């Protein structure tokens, strides 16, 4: 566009006021790098954003009919799904989209980890992404209670109860969260406020920040391809591909919402309304949270009542907090990637995290437990079956990494597999197996460090430099 020729029409009118030409110029010249890995990873942020948009749109539609209250929450959701035209579709799409958003977000996060897109100068993009992940989980947790049905009521009671494990402040935090010592309608009011006001404002702000960072810094080029790099125009090439993927996602979402209106029926991914919550009714066994919290749920179960001088749940939540803290600080911990070098240890850390979370989640699903009636499934059989599954997946992934990606660093994933094998196949308690695997990992890391130091020293001696 020639800046000297005044534009006519609406664009000209806007240009004179808002100087759109700079934005158009930015879009025309914005490019997406292409490299060794698949460009598919660059689309996952977009799909997550798409599902978030669906969430907001369907959430607003639900809000038109939903009435929070002891005698209205459950009834209004029933009304939405049975009487409101297309209400069933809106609720089903809202629930499906929530789960698909988390799936997309998790894949996006792990792909970012594996391609090291978090490396400087994009540390804050990673951190804002991590905060968005936490917000998405809070959305899931707060939204779960809103139908005020039996399952949601008991799952929220169990879920919020774990807050008690935070020392000193635990009881106070629990009462703030619940609006009293127990889950009551006060809890629903608080969760409703969080779900429709606080969290949306926070997520819009952080998504905005995340997008600004991406636009200012561009997408991270693949490691080792900083100079001779191919690229694709963002507009229209990448944007149209994004749009096509969104359309495919929409087709998938609509089909799922129609075919499985109450979810696929696996634990933690089921939103059939069932019975209305009755705080006086006894809790039934086998209450489980949403699938993305299952690994924490299982970890709490695996820890003994007392660990060293701490309560078991307290220790389990400390482990979770430390792991999530490490995950959030990865851009600063990964010094190889920061210098533009390949960083196999952190690729392996991502694989180990998947194996660790995957094993716990599979156990929480009681796979191989042969449950009959109300009897609890056999924990040892579950650990054995899920252990074998995890080891099979771990071995296949390692083989693929060796043969296809030519990876040679497997300390973290190896430790995760040793942990699974000791617990699942040899029947050691989960914590004991974890401690053994941890110290084994530390020993191997120490040996590797000594070996690399000796090699460096030898190289220096060969070159005749000072020792």
């Amino acid at each position, binding site marked *: 566009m020639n800046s000297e020729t005044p534009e006519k029409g609406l664009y000209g009118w806007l240009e004179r006021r808002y100087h759109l030409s700079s934005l158009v110029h930015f879009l025309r010249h914005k490019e997406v790098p292409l490299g060794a890995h698949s460009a598919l990873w660059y689309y996952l942020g977009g799909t997550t954003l798409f599902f978030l948009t669906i969430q907001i749109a369907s959430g607003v539609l639900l809000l038109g009919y939903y009435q929070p209250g002891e005698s209205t929450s459950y009834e209004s959701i029933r009304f939405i*799904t*049975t009487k409101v035209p297309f209400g069933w579709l809106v609720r089903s799409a809202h629930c499906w989209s929530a789960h698909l958003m988390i799936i997309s977000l998790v894949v996006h996060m792990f792909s970012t980890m594996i391609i090291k897109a978090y490396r400087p100068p994009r540390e804050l993009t990673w951190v804002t992404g991590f905060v968005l992940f936490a917000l998405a989980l809070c959305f899931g947790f707060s939204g779960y209670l809103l139908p005020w049905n039996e399952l949601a009521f008991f799952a929220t009671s169990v879920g919020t109860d774990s807050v008690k494990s*935070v020392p*000193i402040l635990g009881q106070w935090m629990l009462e703030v969260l619940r609006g009293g010592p127990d889950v009551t309608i006060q809890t629903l009011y608080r969760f409703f406020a969080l779900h429709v006001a606080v969290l949306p404002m926070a997520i819009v702000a952080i998504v905005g920040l995340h997008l600004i960072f991406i636009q200012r810094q561009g997408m991270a080029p693949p490691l080792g391809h900083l100079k001779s790099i191919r690229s694709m125009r963002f507009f229209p090439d990448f944007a*149209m591909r994004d749009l096509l993927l969104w359309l495919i996602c929409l087709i998938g979402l*609509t*089909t799922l919402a129609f075919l499985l209106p109450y979810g696929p029926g696996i634990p933690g991914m089921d939103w059939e309304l069932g019975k209305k919550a009755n705080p006086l009714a006894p809790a039934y066994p086998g209450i489980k949270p949403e699938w993305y919290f299952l690994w924490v749920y299982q970890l709490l179960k695996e820890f003994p009542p007392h660990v060293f001088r701490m309560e078991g749940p307290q220790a389990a939540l400390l482990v979770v*907090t430390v792991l999530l803290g490490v995950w959030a600080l990865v851009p600063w911990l990964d010094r190889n990637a920061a210098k533009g070098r390949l960083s196999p240890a952190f690729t392996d850390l991502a694989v180990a995290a998947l194996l660790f979370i995957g094993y716990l989640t599979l156990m929480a699903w009681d796979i191989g437990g042969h449950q009959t009636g109300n009897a609890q499934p056999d924990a040892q059989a579950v650990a054995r079956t899920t252990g074998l599954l995890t080891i099979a997946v771990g071995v296949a992934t390692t083989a693929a990494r060796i043969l296809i990606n030519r990876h040679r660093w497997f300390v973290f994933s190896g430790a995760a597999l040793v942990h699974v094998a000791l617990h699942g196949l040899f029947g050691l308690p989960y914590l004991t197996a974890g401690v053994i695997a941890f110290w084994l990992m530390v020993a191997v890391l120490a040996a590797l460090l000594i070996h690399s130091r000796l090699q460096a020293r030898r190289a220096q001696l060969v070159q005749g430099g000072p020792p």
Partner: protein
Amino acid sequence: MISATLLLASVVGQLLRPDTHLLLFATDGGAVETQVSSTQLPKQVAALLTEKDASGKPIISDDLRSYLQSLPDHTVGLIGRSIDLEMLASADHLKILLSLKLSPQAAELVFTDNCIVCHTDPENQRPHTLFSIDPPKDRPHLNLKEFLSDTHFRRGLSCAGCHGGSPTDKRMVDEIYQKWPKRDARQKDRTWIPEFCGSCHSSPGRMRQFNPSLPTDQLAKYRESRHGILLLQEKDSRAAQCVSCHGVHGIRDPKSRLSLVHPQRVPETCGRCHADSSLMANYKLPDGSSFPTNQLADYRRSVHGKALLEKGDLGAPACNSCHGNHAALPPAVASVAQICRTCHVANGTLFDGSKHKQAFETHKWPECEMCHGKHAIQKPTVEMVGNTPGTLCFDCHAKYSQSNPECNATAAHFHQVLTALDAQAKVYSSQTEQLAERGLDVAPLQESLEEFDEAFVKARTTIHSFDRGTFDAAAAPGKEALAKAQSWLEKARREYRFRRNGLLASIAVMVFLAAVLYFKIREISSRS
């Protein structure tokens, strides 16, 4: 991160709390010793605490010392008094009483009662007079825990209440030996027991002091019962008396699930004798045939037994609901139907107005029992009625009333209508489940099916009128409910088709748009 910092800080804080160090030494004997000795115990009690066993360990463990410390001063004083009276002479004896971990109130009662203190001393009592926590299996009445849970003890009636003497007696007084028949005689001849229990339980004045709402006619009823006649008139000491059903030294309120006469335990309690073939071999039925022992097994698999024992429905009848409690007798032919009517009123009324009533009276048949049986009563099914061999109607009429085609036609009609309705309802019910899984609103459908269920039960009940007109009138609402359900099913199916077609149309539009986009992307890619 804030939460992580808080968590870490709090964990460190938790570890550094001074009371955490106390916890570390909680199992240390020295620490507890200091704690216990901080309060003054009577010196004779403190002396028992220092006693040690053969291996040198204190006989009274730290845990029991802490418990002793927690008892009120007055109770501890009573322990000291028992030691002074030489009723509590050893640490082993004290250990038995402390290990019951009684509430302070119960402990006060125990240490006030010299009978209990003395009869729990392993060094001074003979095996048949020693109360302990783990008595020999052939002497369950010497179970100390059971005795302290007994409803009589809890209401202030202790040993002396039945055995005589006084809780403050320091030795066995003559009254105790004179109150009951001599041991051999009282075990051989049990006729004294009902009268003995009745001395309180038949006295309204006496019962008013303890439990004014409890009836006082048990003994009068018992005298008229079969058990009472056997024991009191025929002097058969094998016959059940008070202790046989209520137990001894562990008697609880019948509302307690531990009571032998709690509704859910009544069948088992009666079965202890009535399912014992060797004991029942001593008795004959009035017609001379042997006494059956399959009642308990039959009851357990009956609809009533399953409701009471498996589903926990305390409203379901147990043995005593039909036979009576203290006045237990087999119901006579004339009264069977009246007993069933206490719950199944509507069926009884319909039967009374039917043609069968007269026929049953003529044959002297027990009404309900003829078709439904007695102890093994099963849930009635449609297959019970009909005009084919194997159905109750056909088999009975073939034997007693062969030349009545109208009866057979009526039975066939009952069977045909009920079978058709039931089959149709099952189909609708399964279709409703399918539609519910597809996310359709099935609440009105379920309501119609619930209406049908109610009408179906009523229609089935009217079979007891054995009248076609009455039955058809009762079955009509069921047919209407099913017609309503069918129209709701049609509506739900239409809605499903609308949704499916809508999905297909929208997918077609989206696929078309996606195809357009795809070709546009290819075009742009080839240009650039």
